[in-house]
């Protein structure tokens, strides 16, 4: 299946979803004025991708410095989707990478972690 590559803008993150290497990366800031519109193609790609991963090990790296309230909902929906996939017996490693100078980035990661039941969100300090 094709990779999904979306370049970053000032208010949307860089998306590098590599289906071949099972490596999904989302990096940057996210505060589009119309979140649903921006993320629709991302979710349809994910649906198709997660359907066919079989027993491959998938790594998801999220490095988000800032997200607005509607992007927060999108991220939660994305994590719920990963959690459902893991509950089907598939393998996903989910990493939340934060900058230690930005104390709220760690806090946000912890809040997402609290809302996931079976999927572990690994909080990782960004290496300088």
């Amino acid at each position, binding site marked *: 299946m094709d990779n999904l590559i979306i370049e970053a803008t*000032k*208010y949307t993150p860089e998306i590098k979803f590599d289906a071949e290497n099972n490596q999904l990366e989302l990096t940057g800031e996210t*505060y*589009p*004025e*119309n*979140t649903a519109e921006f993320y629709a193609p991302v979710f349809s790609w994910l649906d198709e991708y997660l359907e066919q991963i079989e027993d491959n090990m998938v790594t998801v790296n999220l490095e988000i410095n*800032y997200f*607005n*309230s*509607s992007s*927060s*909902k*999108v991220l*939660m929906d994305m994590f719920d989707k990963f959690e459902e996939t893991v509950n089907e017996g598939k393998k996903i490693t989910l990493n939340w990478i934060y900058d230690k*100078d*930005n*104390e*709220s980035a760690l806090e946000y990661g912890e*809040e997402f972690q*609290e*809302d996931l039941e079976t999927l572990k969100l690994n909080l990782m300090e960004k290496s300088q």
Partner: protein
Amino acid sequence: MVKSLQDINSDFCKHKVFLSFSGPLSQDLTVEMGEILKTKMKLEGATISTILKVFSIMVEVNHNIIHYSAEKAFKNGITTEQGKTGCGIITIGQEKDTYYLMAGNLIEKSSVLKLKDSLNKLISMDSQELKKFYKEKRKQGPDADSKGAGLGFIEIARKVSCPLEYDFRDVENDLAFFSLKTIV
């Protein structure tokens, strides 16, 4: 008329307003206002955490104005190169050792009661209750009349260091002017 501009300016100076905008807001403007806000606060020695709090309140109020202001710059939902717009006013300033941000826009009178209720509810909550409410809403999904996640005001309430202040004033016919003050 031309003299009144100086009155407005000295009023802003008196209230230590360092960034203001009045008119049709767009996503691009939000980004540019954010850039200048972050640069200015950084030069003043504000911490990353304070800068991000003020910036994120600005993003939420701007998006509220873009989506919900009853005053549109262009009739019949005409979209411009800048995408969706809505009219409002934003002022950001300093007060003692805090930053404040005020935002105002016209809304339909019919939505005043509901908005007042939700703001009062947020004002009555402490930080743990706000966190719980935010997470519940985030799991649950938005109300039918929301254009985003319905989390904007909760997000704002979680960032402020003093309770939110608001005002509603009848303007004309079916419209009221909604003002919000936030302090970080």
